[in-house]
């Protein structure tokens, strides 16, 4: 039976990566000294599973590497080795290596052998030579060698099999063993029942019989032993060659073996050499090099693991949908019947009135609406994963960074179970890591500075996630130094982002850190200053249809709040009209909508119009001007303005009309047309027309460009 093992690889990789995460997070909670046995056991179990699976599915390098880690963990588990910081760190680094090895196995790419070898050396070093490098690979060797050196011995064997009375207790059955033996050769069995107890003393579960078996044929002793493998402690077993036909020349057989192997190896080497010379490759070293990247598997598809409860829920909802459909069917039939009756002019007593049918129709439609909404939610939930997938990376990051930066930081994580769309999840990881790095690097101070400032020595970084009105909120909060506004302002002036005369609120200054080109070079360290600025963080989040804002108080700390849509497939939108077209503004971006009071409009000299909203001046953008349409109401009297948040600051966009709010399915513009700066996508409305979805950041950018180019006059 041949089974394609690759079909199980995906599940294997999934659970192995999960296992690595478990190992990592448990290692981080492990106290140095005599570690908690339960925690070590959990880590051990994860390693053990990876080893077992890797062996079974043919990833021997992974299996061997995990074996060494497992040996170390085993010694920690049984208490023969103390849990040292070095060992923990080393195991953590080994997890990284193992992850790379698994990724290479998954993607069919070459592993960095040097890195692996270096890790082996460290781990074996910890094991202090009790387990030398070579012994690792020899573990499986003996059994193979043993089996292959034994040669069939002529005519057969005599087997004396005297079971202990309890042999049946573990589910073993002599009859099955005999059947297995009879498959090896010709079996004759003689039963000895002299031990059989008198009937009234007989215990039915005990075995009183014993056998003398003769097995004839060319049979390996090992094959016979294998049949009795599980019962060797539950019986007295003697296996002797049948006396008359013993062939006593096994030495010759063994001696001849190396000779048969050697020529093969030689020929293999020579053939490679021949090939090399044929191809006139000068560099001999290249012979040993395997191709860097093997071709990827053709059938690779992203998959997702879904809880059975979610699937059941959908099946349940589909069931309800079917009921609704049959209910509406019935309504249709009744209407048809009525129509027939009406056309034939006949009267029928049992006929249902149209009013009655109409009532049922509206009831059915209401039910359909609910079914559709619930089904939509249910299907969306399939793509939802708990944010712990991303959060679980953080303890390790904080652990590594705080030791690197000589800071003491406690990480508090809450809301890990908050669910988020898979694609959003995949793309939020890096921005989140950057924000955490940033908080550790620039936010939390070193212990001496903290103590001097009268703060607790240990800084706190808290990660929190929760749902709020169709959005996912992620907060990254630290109790560090906060944003140094004077410094940020000075830097922004130096970089030409703002001018010296600009008057900015504290909030606006804080948000300057997200401005493109803003890099606080003199405070950058190798931790967060890796060429990725906060503007990239902001752009990534915006791309996901989300927003990031920062609140900061000097000396007290900062809070970064990321607001993300639950899903990328559906959007809560506000429909607006500009010219003859309907557009969708993502609700997530809208603060409020209002009717303009002409008196509050000011035109700043040389700049755009601003609107005085309560005590704040906000810039006005005319959507018509951005789209190059003719202005229909120059004075903006009683025009409608949608106030959106862009870079943490409100901006008013003038639209012709406000329509309703509704959920829209997002279709990509880039795949179906091309990228449009002011639009993030498109959707199809209930009446079949296409409506474009605004990208408010893009709107502001285009407005600024047009303003600078003098296309829009102030």
């Amino acid at each position, binding site marked *: *039976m*041949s*089974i394609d*093992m690759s*079909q*199980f*690889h995906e*599940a*294997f990789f*999934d*659970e192995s990566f999960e296992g690595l995460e478990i190992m990592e997070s448990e290692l981080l909670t492990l106290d140095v000294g005599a570690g908690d046995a339960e925690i070590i056991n*959990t880590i*051990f*179990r994860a390693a*053990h*599973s990876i*080893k*077992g*699976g890797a*062996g*079974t*599915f043919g990833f021997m390098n992974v*299996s061997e590497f995990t074996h060494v880690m497992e040996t170390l963990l085993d010694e920690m588990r049984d208490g023969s080795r103390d849990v040292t910081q070095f060992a923990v760190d080393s195991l953590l680094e080994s997890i990284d290596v193992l992850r790379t090895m698994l990724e290479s196995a998954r993607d069919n790419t070459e592993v960095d052998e040097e890195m692996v070898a270096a890790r082996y050396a460290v781990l074996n070093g910890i094991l202090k030579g009790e387990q030398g490098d070579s012994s690792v690979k020899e*573990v*499986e060797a003996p*059994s193979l060698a043993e089996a292959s050196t034994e040669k069939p011995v002529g005519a057969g064997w005599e087997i004396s099999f005297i079971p202990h009375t309890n042999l*049946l*207790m*573990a*589910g*073993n*059955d002599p*009859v*099955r063993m005999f*059947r*297995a033996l009879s498959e090896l050769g010709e079996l004759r069995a003689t039963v000895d029942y002299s031990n059989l107890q008198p009937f009234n003393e007989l215990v039915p*579960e005990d075995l009183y019989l014993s056998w003398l078996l003769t097995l004839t044929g060319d049979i390996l002793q090992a094959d016979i032993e294998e*049949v009795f*493998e*599980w019962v060797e*402690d539950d019986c007295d077993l003697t296996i002797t060659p049948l006396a008359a036909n013993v062939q006593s020349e096994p030495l010759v057989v063994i001696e001849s073996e190396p000779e048969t192997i050697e020529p093969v190896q030689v020929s293999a080497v020579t053939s490679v050499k021949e090939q090399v010379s044929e191809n006139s490759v000068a560099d001999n070293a290249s012979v040993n090099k395997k191709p860097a990247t093997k071709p990827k598997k053709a059938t690779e598809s992203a998959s997702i693991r879904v809880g059975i409860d979610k699937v059941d829920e959908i099946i349940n909802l589909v069931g309800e949908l079917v009921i609704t459909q049959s209910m509406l069917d019935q309504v249709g039939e009744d209407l048809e019947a009525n129509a027939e009756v009406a056309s034939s002019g006949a009267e029928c007593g049992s006929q249902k009135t149209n009013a009655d049918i109409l009532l049922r129709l509206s009831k059915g439609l209401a039910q359909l609406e609910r079914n559709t909404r619930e089904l939509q939610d249910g299907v969306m939930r399939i793509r939802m994963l708990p944010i712990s997938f991303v959060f679980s990376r953080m303890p390790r990051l904080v652990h590594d960074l705080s030791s690197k930066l000589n800071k003491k930081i406690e990480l508090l994580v809450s809301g890990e179970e908050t669910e988020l769309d898979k694609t959003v999840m995949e793309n939020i990881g890096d921005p989140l890591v950057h924000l955490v790095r940033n908080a550790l690097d620039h936010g939390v101070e070193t212990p001496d500075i903290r103590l001097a400032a009268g703060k607790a020595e240990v800084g706190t970084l808290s990660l929190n996630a929760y749902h709020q009105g169709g959005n996912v909120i992620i907060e990254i909060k630290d109790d560090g130094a906060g944003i140094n506004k004077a410094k940020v302002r000075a830097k922004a002036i130096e970089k030409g982002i703002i001018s010296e005369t600009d008057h900015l609120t504290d909030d606006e200054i804080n948000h300057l850190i997200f401005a493109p080109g803003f890099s606080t070079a003199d405070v950058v360290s190798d931790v967060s200053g890796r060429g990725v600025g906060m503007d990239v963080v902001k752009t990534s989040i915006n791309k996901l249809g989300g927003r990031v804002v920062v609140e900061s108080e000097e000396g007290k700390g900062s809070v970064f709040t990321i607001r993300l849509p639950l899903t990328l497939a559906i959007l809560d939108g506000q429909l607006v009209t500009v010219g003859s077209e309907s557009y969708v503004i993502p609700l997530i971006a809208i603060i409020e909508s209002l009717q303009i009071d002409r008196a509050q409009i000011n035109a700043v000299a040389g700049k755009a119009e601003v609107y005085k909203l309560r005590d704040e001046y906000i810039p006005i953008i005319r959507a018509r001007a951005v789209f190059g349409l003719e202005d229909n109401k120059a004075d903006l009297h009683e025009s409608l303005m949608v106030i959106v948040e862009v870079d943490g600051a409100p901006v008013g966009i003038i639209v012709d009309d406000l329509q309703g709010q509704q959920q829209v399915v997002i279709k990509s513009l880039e795949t179906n047309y091309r990228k449009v700066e002011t639009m993030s996508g498109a959707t199809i409305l209930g009446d079949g027309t296409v409506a474009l979805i605004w990208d408010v950041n893009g709107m502001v950018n285009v407005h600024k460009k047009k303003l600078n180019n003098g296309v829009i006059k102030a």
Partner: protein
Amino acid sequence: MARILVVDDSASMRQMVAFTLKGAGHEVVETSDGVEALASAKSGSFDLVITDVNMPNMDGITLTRELRALPNYRFTPILTLTTESSNEKKMAGKQAGATGWLVKPFNPDQLLATAKKVLG
């Protein structure tokens, strides 16, 4: 054809074992730890139990012991899947009442051969 209970916390191993056994015409029930397996064993009957050793909640050794304490499973073949080629784990399984063991890594053919050994 036999009814076989497969117990392994690793989904890939479980899938592989179940797929192989189903391919040979057996009926397979999959569970992911000892607690689940014990519940399945109590609510149905099986001709063979194949269990991993290292599992959360309840390991394979404890499961074997618990199964043997049930009247219906006193003689049912129970095989443990173990990565240890050392005798220690095999013997722990035996002492708990396991019929035999299969050492990981194994291939589908070895699995079927081993199952055949106890199913007759």
